[in-house]
């Protein structure tokens, strides 16, 4: 089974062969490295950019303007902050030109904690990203979703920000990507670049088939009746594990993987919360002006009389960084035990 880095690579391969992707670029994206997380190894349209994030976003905008279809990478989302006015500009280009100029471009960037990345390789970007209108914002939690969502992103007419939870980058999926060899190590032999000299190496691409996962559709990954948990990215699998564990304690939780943060699938959330009366939003970005706070506002606006307990948010602590020591990281962003406890407490609340 492909891990998420391989799934991204397979999607980009499919996209440059069949969806018109013209340029896959960023710092160390081209050979020999193929990306610091190996997401772009062996692809035919990759190239290495100068170490200049503003140049990367500007270049992507220009390529999109001139009819190309770029996929640009910012090496870590922690380094995307100096591009924020260009992201704003990309988001308003269609609007400010009253519909004349659209920008079909994808920006992908690894996000979040979980690799002991310390202050500048651990941060999230979903809270900031969801403050920038005009972008579609995607964050998968499984390799198959990463594959299907990236194919959708590469067919978009609008800018798409593709956030890749780096903690999940090396986790193998439970579902095969169509066309992926089923034998466990076969895929790696075909598409992972060897260590050492790579000058003669070429990827042997399996004939992967497209998977359609439209942007804006959440996935209910566990059905339940007493409590709704909405999450995405790194914390999603933890929510699922916690829900399964809590089942033996008599708590029946429904878990929704949002997958797309904008536009998001409110219909799925609303139907679930209307059924359960309890909702916990979980993500790991800092909790003040967090995207989950918006979801809570909408929950209270539209579902107030259906609620059996206050809607809750479990998110990252509002501190300036994520410290390197295990203890500091664990205290800064939600862990399995935190999610378990939050769900259990919410399930026990009564009006």
């Amino acid at each position: 089974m492909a891990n998420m880095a391989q799934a991204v690579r397979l999607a980009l391969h499919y996209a440059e062969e069949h969806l018109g992707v013209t340029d896959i670029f960023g710092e160390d994206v081209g050979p020999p490295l193929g990306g610091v997380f190996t997401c772009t190894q062996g692809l035919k349209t990759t190239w290495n950019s100068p170490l200049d994030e503003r140049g990367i976003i500007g270049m992507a905008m220009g390529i999109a303007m001139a009819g190309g279809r770029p996929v640009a990478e910012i090496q870590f989302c922690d380094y995307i902050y100096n591009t924020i006015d260009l992201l704003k500009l990309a988001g308003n280009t269609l609007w400010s030109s009253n519909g004349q100029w659209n920008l079909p471009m994808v920006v992908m960037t690894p996000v979040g904690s979980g690799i002991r990345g310390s202050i500048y390789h651990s941060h999230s970007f979903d809270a900031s990203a969801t403050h920038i209108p005009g972008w579609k914002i995607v964050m998968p939690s499984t390799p198959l979703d990463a594959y299907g969502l990236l194919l959708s992103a590469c067919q978009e007419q609008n800018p798409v920000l593709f956030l890749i939870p780096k903690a999940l980058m090396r986790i193998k999926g439970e579902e095969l990507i169509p066309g992926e060899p089923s034998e466990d190590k076969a895929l790696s032999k075909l598409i992972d670049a060897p260590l050492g000299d790579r000058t003669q190496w070429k990827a042997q691409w399996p004939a992967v088939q497209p998977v359609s996962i439209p942007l804006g559709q959440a996935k209910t990954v566990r059905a339940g009746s007493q409590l709704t948990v909405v999450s995405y990215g790194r914390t999603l699998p933890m929510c699922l594990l916690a829900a399964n564990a809590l089942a033996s304690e008599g708590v029946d939780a429904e878990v929704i993987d949002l997958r797309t943060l904008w536009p998001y699938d409110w219909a799925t959330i609303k139907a679930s919360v209307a059924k359960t009366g309890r909702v916990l939003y979980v993500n790991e970005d800092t909790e003040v002006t967090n995207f989950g706070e918006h979801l809570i506002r909408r929950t209270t606006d539209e579902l107030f009389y259906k609620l059996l307990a206050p809607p809750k948010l479990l998110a990252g602590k509002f501190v300036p960084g994520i410290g390197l020591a295990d203890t500091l990281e664990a205290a800064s962003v939600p862990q399995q035990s935190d999610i378990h406890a939050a769900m259990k407490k919410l399930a026990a609340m009564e009006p």
Partner: protein
Amino acid sequence: MAPPFPWVYTPPAMAREGKNPSPSSPTKPPKPSSPSKFKPKITQSDDLPLEKDLLLRMHDVMVKARCLEERLIAMYKSGHGYFWIGGPGEEAFNTALGLLIKKGEGPAYDYLHFHYRQSATLLAMGEEPLGAIRQMKNTATDPYSGGRNFAGHFAKKAWNVAPVSSPIEVQYSMAPGTAWVQKRFGGDGISIVTGGDAGTAEGDFATCLVWASRPGKEVPLLILVTNNRWGISTPYTDVQGVEKISDRGVAFGMRTKTIDGNDPISAYLELKEAFEYVRTERKPYLVEARVSRLYGHSSASGANFVTNEADCIAQFEDRLIKKGLLTRQSADALRAKYAEELAELARQAKEEPFPEGSTIWEHVFKGEPARDPLATEEG
């Protein structure tokens, strides 16, 4: 009395004729505190080495553009617009530029990453001035932004005019992208980016130089800086140590030059050479043009005519008259004609409606219906 703007470049000929009070006024030579040693080559001679038709066409566009800007200022001052910013003083350079552009849509044509002082370029390309007036009045009919953006913020996809935006210099980061596609596409279409001198302090300018000149991957990009030696109220010499902005391109191995942007003939010939190089060699060229700023930065600083900077139209008219290609009467008549035409267009725009408030939901995403994503069934 010391002149207030000792750093402003004024051709000696103008100063001699006393048409423009300047630091080189014979009565009291100034002693600038931090003068620029650089003086553009004086090209405004009696020779007019271009065809008569082209000279008169340039003059016509320059006058029309000045009248347009003055009408926009008048609209602002009479409450028919909230803010004015534009390019009076840059007509000579911008007109020459516009006449050299390969106009059209797609990578076979020139991509234009402009800033907000280029109405003369658009008029030289054949644009009707009514659109600029509608944008000033922020009517629904504004063809560039539908009443959403400031005056001078053009966007016209049919001519590859990328949306002009207020954060100066971001265009320098985007322009290598269109040029990159054009390098691959082939043909002779190029990308052109323009910004001001103040904004070259932004990192985007360095981005442009780096990305345009990657070894073996140079792109067909004409990088233009109109240097009026002002950043709103801050003199260039207060904040930038580089004498010629064009010198910054030298470090990147690109061709560079600094030209007199107040002389339409020189600007045309110098730009023509740069255009030809970029079109055929498919490599970047950095041109700095020294220009004037005749109505200040924007309406925020009053938008009043300044008399201590060279006026490219007055200069050019003197030369055309001296050569017998124009008379004072015909020049005045042309100006009066455009002033009246533009006043009439402004009267027309004043009657046009603003966009409906509900249109804010239009064009958030291409291909999707205009709607409030948070609207509830209850409303």
